């Protein structure tokens, strides 16, 4: 065991800020000389990362505890894997650890960055770790384990600190409840996993995909003898090469981190850059290098430019590598392999070739292309529209992964072919596909889909139905009330505090609330008239009018009601809403779960494809009991829409009415409604609170991540041969929504939000929040007709 490297005093999990003993750490992870110092770059980094991670979340308030004196560092409630640790930039920690952060930025911006990387790699190929003068003040105190490794529990603490520093430093205003001492599920080293796992702690930091880091890893892995788990020096490259064999790299933790980092960059760079991750997996180690090519690019172009720009990539494997694939120890002075390990460096196309020639186990539902005929050993998995190629193998796996967000950009990546196909037909392929299939489009076009089917490609279950169902590319733009609309809604709302529909109020409503007018008004446009409650009621076949709903709202009993309108009791029964509950729609009434769930059902049945409304009891059950309690809820529907982690473009939106407080005595009925939204397309989990400060977003985020992790395990289990998207890529966001000014309308806000998203009824834009109660009454009583008129 080479624990001596870590022999620095270790305080049992408490990691004091350690000055980095020279020579002990990260030999290669730090750029030497040519790079600006971490401190210099950090500001830039921060800004960039902040942009990446949060550019769209100006309103997010996540507060972090002050982990470091004088630094207001927000802390991620690192609980049970609920937060993505690394996607969030850390102002405070812009030190050593961050080069990785910088790196991504740098790479994108600086074409030559990769060159430097390679130089660096070459320098360090010797395995001699260049002692990095570790500026003490630069180090994150806890990121380095010293001496004997702390136990998992101990390390988790470190992780928390690290993550929190990193994740939220840029959000000084955020407030976070203290962590429960919980860690991201995957950041915790798996006890069952031998040491190699440990570096993973650092991983989050480095997750940004530092080329350095990967190099460091490789060296480390090189020096790592098979069964002996040498505690990996936690490089500030922070990478852990996972020794967990994961043929597909879809394991929660690692690849996802990589990808999230990568994605984060990509997501917001638009057309500025494309990053690709090549995790190479030999069953024990993974080498990751990050390549950036100018955008736009085809894969072929990308490969070419990658080779040109990046040159060498170093891999370590315990398997025999065919000699013609690569020359072992190409990197001068490479650390000698041990115990049969092979270290090789090669160019990208060689790597691909090597993969092609690598013996593969029985394919797992792979797509075999021409290479199959030529080489029985080669299998390709092309996942439609995920822009990914997977070559599953127990020996070597390479994945070229382009973030799905690219598909949102006008320029698309192209379907990839690797190895023989690519080499031989690169130009041909390029021409063909550039003119014909620019991308595996979303939804995958029929031609391509059928082709893939013929080839036996495993397509995610549900994808076919999905592609049929989603015939509209742009059916679901994000619901974003304009600023003006929000302002209007707010100001308008203040006038909506009437308690009863008295004649005065009706007059006022007629004057100020077009949607509630009981009579048309001169000057209203046709369109406006058509979208008013008045028109809705007036155009109904029967002679019901507004007063009918009023009567319902104010009637004493069902019998009384039945005498007036026999259809009403039936309608209520159909919706499973009692009259008592229905009368809560009177102004001032608190909405209850019956109304909430009845409207939810209507939305579910009429909503745009992909919209699923959860029960209002969902969060309560989930928070109290856990995933097992709700795993079957809406399962069929969620599966039908592709689940949460499909690599396919996925429009699934889960709308969650939340009865606050989520954690409360079981016998209490709650005091507040908020709204949660899980948007699979943008990978955002939003929390909408019409009375900010009442609801607890952190608990919601934690709780929903319990569910999403549970779903991940489930979806992974049922789609073994598909690389799912990572469960760690979710972005948490507190949506800035119109605020209620009274003490009773929160449920109406939630219902309005759900209608807006599910049925695209733009109440906010019509400035009619105060008329929502009438809308909801009309919706429940006459859902068919109502939807015909109001739903787009």
């Amino acid at each position: 065991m080479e624990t001596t490297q870590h022999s620095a005093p270790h305080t049992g999990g408490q990691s004091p800020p350690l000055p980095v003993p020279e020579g002990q750490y990260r030999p290669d992870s730090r750029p030497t000389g040519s790079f600006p110092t971490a401190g210099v770059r950090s500001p830039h980094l921060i800004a960039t990362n902040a942009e990446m991670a949060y550019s769209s979340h100006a309103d997010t308030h996540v507060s972090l505890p002050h982990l470091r004196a004088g630094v207001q560092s927000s802390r991620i409630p690192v609980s049970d894997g609920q937060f993505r640790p690394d996607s969030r930039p850390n102002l405070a920690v812009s030190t050593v650890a961050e080069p990785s952060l910088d790196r991504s930025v740098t790479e994108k911006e600086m074409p030559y960055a990769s060159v430097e990387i390679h130089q660096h790699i070459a320098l360090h190929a010797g395995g001699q770790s260049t002692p990095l003068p570790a500026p003490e003040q630069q180090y994150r105190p806890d990121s380095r384990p010293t001496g004997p490794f702390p136990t998992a529990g101990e390390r988790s603490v470190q992780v928390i600190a690290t993550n929190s520093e990193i994740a939220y430093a840029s959000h000084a205003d955020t407030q976070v409840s203290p962590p429960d001492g919980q860690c991201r599920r995957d950041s915790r080293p798996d006890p069952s996993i031998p040491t190699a796992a440990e570096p993973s702690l650092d991983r989050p930091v480095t997750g940004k995909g530092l080329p350095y880091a990967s190099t460091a890893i490789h060296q480390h892995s090189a020096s790592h003898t098979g069964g002996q788990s040498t505690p990996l020096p936690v490089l500030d490259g922070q990478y852990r090469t996972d020794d967990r064999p994961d043929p597909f790299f879809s394991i929660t933790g690692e690849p996802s981190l990589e990808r999230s980092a990568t994605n984060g960059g990509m997501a917001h760079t638009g057309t500025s850059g494309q990053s690709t991750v090549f995790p190479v997996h030999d069953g024990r180690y993974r080498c990751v290098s990050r390549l950036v090519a100018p955008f736009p690019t085809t894969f072929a172009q990308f490969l070419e430019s990658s080779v040109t720009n990046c040159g060498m990539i170093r891999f370590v494997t315990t398997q025999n590598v065919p000699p013609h694939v690569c020359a072992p120890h190409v990197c001068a002075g490479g650390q000698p392999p041990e115990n049969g390990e092979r270290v090789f460096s090669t160019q990208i196309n060689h790597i691909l070739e090597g993969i092609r020639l690598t013996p593969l186990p029985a394919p797992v539902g792979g797509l075999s292309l021409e290479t199959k005929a030529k080489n029985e050993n080669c299998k390709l998995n092309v996942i439609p529209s995920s822009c990914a190629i997977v070559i599953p193998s127990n020996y070597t796996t390479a994945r070229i992964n382009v973030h799905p967000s690219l598909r949102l950009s006008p320029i698309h990546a192209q379907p990839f072919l690797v190895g023989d196909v690519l080499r031989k037909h690169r130009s041909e392929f390029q021409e063909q596909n550039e003119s014909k299939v620019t991308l595996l489009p979303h939804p995958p076009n029929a031609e391509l889909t059928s082709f893939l089917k013929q080839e036996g490609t495993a397509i995610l279950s549900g994808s076919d139905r999905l592609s049929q169902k989603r015939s509209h590319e742009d059916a679901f733009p994000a619901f974003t009330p304009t600023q003006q609309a929000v302002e209007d809604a707010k100001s308008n709302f203040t006038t909506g505090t009437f308690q009863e529909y008295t004649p005065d109020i009706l007059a006022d409503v007629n004057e100020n609330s077009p949607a509630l007018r009981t009579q048309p008004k001169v000057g209203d446009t046709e369109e406006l008239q058509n979208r008013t409650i008045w028109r809705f009621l007036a155009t109904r076949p029967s002679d019901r009018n507004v007063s009918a709903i009023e009567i319902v709202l104010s009637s004493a009993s069902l019998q009384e009601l039945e005498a007036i309108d026999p259809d009403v009791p039936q309608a209520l029964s159909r919706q499973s809403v009692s009259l008592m509950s229905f009368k809560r729609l009177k102004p001032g009434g608190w909405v209850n779960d019956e109304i909430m769930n009845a409207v939810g059902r209507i939305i579910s049945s009429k909503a745009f494809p992909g919209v699923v409304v959860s029960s209002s009891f969902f969060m309560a059950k989930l928070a109290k009991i856990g995933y097992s309690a709700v795993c079957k809820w809406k399962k069929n529907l969620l599966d039908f829409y592709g689940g949460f982690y499909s690599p396919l473009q996925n429009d699934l939106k889960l709308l969650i009415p939340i009865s606050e407080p989520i954690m409360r005595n079981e016998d209490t009925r709650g005091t507040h409604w908020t709204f949660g939204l899980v948007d699979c397309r943008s990978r955002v989990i939003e929390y909408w609170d019409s009375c900010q400060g009442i609801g607890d977003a952190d608990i919601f985020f934690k709780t929903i991540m319990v569910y999403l992790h549970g779903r991940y395990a489930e979806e992974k289990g049922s789609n073994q041969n598909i690389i799912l998207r990572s469960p760690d890529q979710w972005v948490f966001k507190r949506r800035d929504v119109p605020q209620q000014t009274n003490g009773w309308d929160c449920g109406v806000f939630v219902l309005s939000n759900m209608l807006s998203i599910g049925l695209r009824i733009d109440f906010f834009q019509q400035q009619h929040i105060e008329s929502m109660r009438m809308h909801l009454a009309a919706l429940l009583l006459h859902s068919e007709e109502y939807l015909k008129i109001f739903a787009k």
Partner: protein
Amino acid sequence: MADELENAPTQENELPVEPKAEDANTPINIKVVSSTGEEVFFKIKRNTKLSKLQLAYAQKIGKDVGTIRFLYDGERIQEDDTPQSLDMEENDAIDVMVEQVGGRR
């Protein structure tokens, strides 16, 4: 846990009307799980309306049936639902939740 109570006061009145009488008549055990996790088992014929079970449960715990909600797989159990119509299986759980309200005061 699992106080096995044969809750049959009403189900005797139910006559099988389904053609698959034998199947419909087969009683199954259903457990009702409160929001605190306490479980109460009911034995009920497959074609007996679950509303009877709801009433019995509400009575047992001393609450108005209008203030509690019975969910099966997250969906509110409707007036006419029976174990058969819901395709329930032996030992399936019905979740009982307390009414939720909210207004923020």
